[in-house]
């Protein structure tokens, strides 16, 4: 599957939630990111109430702490029923419900929890992403 991009490697990805609700987003493809990220409000809408941290005292079991170059951040770990880019589809993909800054203009980041075990190529000269199944899966 070859998908062109302009500035950032992005694809449109379809998420199907636990309640059958479907949401499609323009997602940033980031093989350097361990987990995928999704806004909390959408995680809730897709049928994952555990995305809301409504208990301020006890630490919930699905609390996730991440580290980035300028500090630590927290989100809630959920497992999205199905995630698909065209013909490439995965079930029970780990996402972190976390609100990226709105000024970033992206709601969703696709990390290794979705990209594994695919083969991904980012060709900056050709401005193209290639996503395909690995040899074993073929």
């Amino acid at each position, binding site marked *: 599957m070859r998908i062109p991009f302009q500035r950032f490697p992005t694809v*449109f990805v379809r998420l199907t939630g636990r309640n059958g*609700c*479907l949401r*499609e987003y323009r997602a*940033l493809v980031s093989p350097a990111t361990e987990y995928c990220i999704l806004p909390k*409000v959408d995680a809730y809408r897709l049928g994952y109430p555990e995305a809301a941290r409504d208990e301020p005292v006890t630490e919930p079991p699905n609390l996730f702490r991440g580290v980035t*170059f300028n500090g630590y951040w927290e989100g809630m770990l959920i497992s999205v029923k199905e995630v698909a*880019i*065209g013909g490439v589809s995965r079930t029970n993909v780990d996402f972190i419900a976390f609100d990226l800054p709105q*000024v970033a203009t992206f709601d969703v980041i696709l990390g290794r929890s979705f990209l594994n075990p695919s083969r991904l190529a980012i060709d900056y000269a050709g401005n193209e992403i290639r996503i395909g199944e690995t040899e074993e899966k073929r």
Partner: protein
Amino acid sequence: MPASSPETREATFEQIKKEHPNLWVAVTVTKRDENGQPVAGKVVADDADRYRLRDQIIMHNDICIFFAGEPLYPLFL
């Protein structure tokens, strides 16, 4: 764009980006390419705030959401 007057005209995503610049847009997809990537759709709602947009599309079970623009500053996500 008020939720009570949804657009019914199909437009390509390039046209949608030109007509709704720097806004979060919710679209029902009508056409896809060979990779399953959306190429055309009908705009259901748009807003400068991603949360207000969600309030406008709460009744939709299958919708595409994206920002019709580029980040203003360099990105390090």
